[in-house]
């Protein structure tokens, strides 16, 4: 009986369980997955995030030589597949909660990229940053085996045209050199 009274008395010193929410920021557990956001500086516009998105929350639109990537987290499952797939860690799931809004298209993060024209057929097919990124990576791995002008010549051609002109000696030489280097 007395123990019970003592227990009740000690409750006076215990903090209330309620979180004083608007006054303090909410608690986010480790690896919390909030709304995804693009970092427009590091994004290369390869579209890997849109390829893996299970709910099609990430869309790619190509318009007037611009590639626009949009993530609408009103349609997102917060699975973080895009974060896994991104080769440059540009898209990230932030540690915030989505702020409610009367307009459902407020929940959009977008990036715009300039595109490259194919030098044979004149079609837009890749972003400038993507091509630069590939050149940088190949130079890192291959060293001086491949010259930049040669690589640019190859990468500025769209995949369809590349198939058509596979028998062009300059392209074949380049591919052979890269493959031989890899085997060694």
């Amino acid at each position: 009986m007395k123990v019970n009274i003592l227990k009740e008395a000690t409750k006076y010193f215990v903090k209330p369980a309620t979180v004083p929410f608007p006054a303090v920021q909410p608690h986010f557990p480790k690896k919390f997955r909030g709304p995804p956001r693009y970092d427009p500086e590091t994004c290369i516009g390869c579209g890997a995030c849109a390829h893996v998105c299970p709910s099609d929350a990430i869309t790619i639109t190509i318009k007037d030589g611009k590639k626009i990537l949009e993530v609408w987290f009103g349609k997102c499952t917060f699975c973080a597949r895009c974060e896994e797939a991104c080769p440059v860690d540009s898209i990230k799931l932030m540690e915030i909660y989505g702020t409610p809004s009367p307009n459902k298209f407020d929940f959009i993060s977008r990036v715009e990229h300039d595109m490259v024209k194919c030098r044979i057929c004149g079609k837009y097919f890749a972003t400038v940053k993507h091509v630069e990124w590939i050149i940088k990576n190949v130079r890192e791995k291959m060293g001086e085996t491949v010259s930049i002008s040669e690589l640019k010549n190859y990468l500025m051609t769209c995949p369809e045209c590349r198939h058509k002109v596979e028998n062009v000696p300059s392209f074949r030489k380049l591919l052979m050199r890269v493959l031989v280097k890899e085997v060694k």
Partner: protein
Amino acid sequence: MCGLLCKLAAWARKKSPWIFHLPAGGLCNGCDIEIVAALTPRYDVERFGILLAPSPRHADILVVAGQVTKHTKERLLRVYQQVPEPKAVVAVGSCAISGNVFGTENYPLAGTVDQFIPVDVYVPGCPPKPEAIILGIVEAIKKLEGKTRKS
């Protein structure tokens, strides 16, 4: 017309909005659990005067979670009609906003919530944090005030 009485009712509505929680069918119930979590002592929405109403006839704010299926479409419309004017609707979760992974052309689904009833506030998340739901309801109270002035 009713003058003082209407003013009193508007003041009471602003200070203590009653919500009605309606799962609209096509969802995983995660959002429902988060709405219920917002009513627990940890978040304790009753300190803002927000109460869970037992019937839509007593409610001011309708909290809808999930996508509308063909079966729940009629019920949703009926519940919406039962809520007395002025009323506000809060759509909670990705499913209520756009359909999420279930899409919009799935065979048991009729569409998103805003295709059937006017939605005032959208709360994004899958599921949204209870804090976000509380903020959404607070936003809906502001909408209610505007609607009261109009009527």
